[in-house]
């Protein structure tokens, strides 16, 4: 029963959830990588230890923005 319910939910809502997920992800990455766009990052150095966690996502993200290479020296993801 649980599986059927799960299947139903996924069938009907997966797409919408995915879309809003990408929307949120983009906003979050933009906020953490403000300097990437030449804007001042108010976090200063206090985002330093967040970056490794965002490493893989950053790669997917710049690809999805249409940029082949990340272009950040400190995050050699490509």
């Amino acid at each position, binding site marked *: 029963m649980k599986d059927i319910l799960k299947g139903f939910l996924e069938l009907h809502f997966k797409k919408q959830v995915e879309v809003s997920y990408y929307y949120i992800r983009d906003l979050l990455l933009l906020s953490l990588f403000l300097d990437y766009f030449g804007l001042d990052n108010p976090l200063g*150095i206090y985002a330093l230890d967040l970056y490794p966690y965002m490493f893989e996502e950053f790669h997917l993200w710049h690809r999805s923005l249409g940029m082949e290479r990340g272009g950040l020296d400190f995050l050699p993801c490509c």
Partner: protein
Amino acid sequence: MAQKSGYGEGRAGFSTVLLRRLVFFGGKGGVGKSTLSSATALRLSEKDRTLLVSVDPAHSLTGIFGMEIGPQVKILKENLYAVELSAEILVEEYAQRVLGAMGELLPSISSGLKEYSRHIKHSPTALETAVLDKLVELCDEYAFLVVDSAPTGQMLRLFETAHMVSGWFEFLFRLAKERQRLERFMGREDKLLTLIEERRRKLKTLESILREKAVIFAVANEERLSMQEMETLRERLKNFRVYPLLNRWLGMEWKGPRVGWVEEPYGLEGLKKLDVGEILELL
């Protein structure tokens, strides 16, 4: 002093039970902020454990006490400690701490992050956030913290940075939380939220300390320009407890707290000559 644990090590929260007052002295350059902070800290140390912190990049405590102080907390006499914070060293320390842990986890990017930390050391926001971060940690261990601030402009920036970064983390936290909700639906896990939450809590602590325990003295002399800066400080920090204070008072009509003129009030003995009684009454 023992190395304090920082971010990423799961510090649950900061106890600030011990802290009674966080006292700032601000105002135009040369009005006597450092001398007043020193004299006040000296008197407060008779009551309880006191730390005198200089956050002015051009430190002058060493000259006032006639002994080398520097970036490590140093004991001057019973219950009286002093430190001259160097933002650059703080940034360096923080980066080392983070990178040390990260290097083991992800060796492939640690050299890149090292490069990054070399550059970020000179970012103005980094310097302010580093100082604020250290202040919160120091609040843990003393009953009185007396802060000798940089001149007006920089001091205002310090307070504004605290507010801005806190607001920014609030926003990031909301985003990360929403993201986690969505990830959970898709059966994935997210570590980011815990990390952001930790920082947010630390900044909240800082904001509440500043709101509840901070007393700011806007120092001026009997001179027009320094009086003007005193007014600016008072206006811009009107959400905090700010008292205008007249130093080197010679007899001008003045209702607020004042400290009289004293010649060469330097060294542990010399500082006792300064009558800071009216300051202590307000703490």
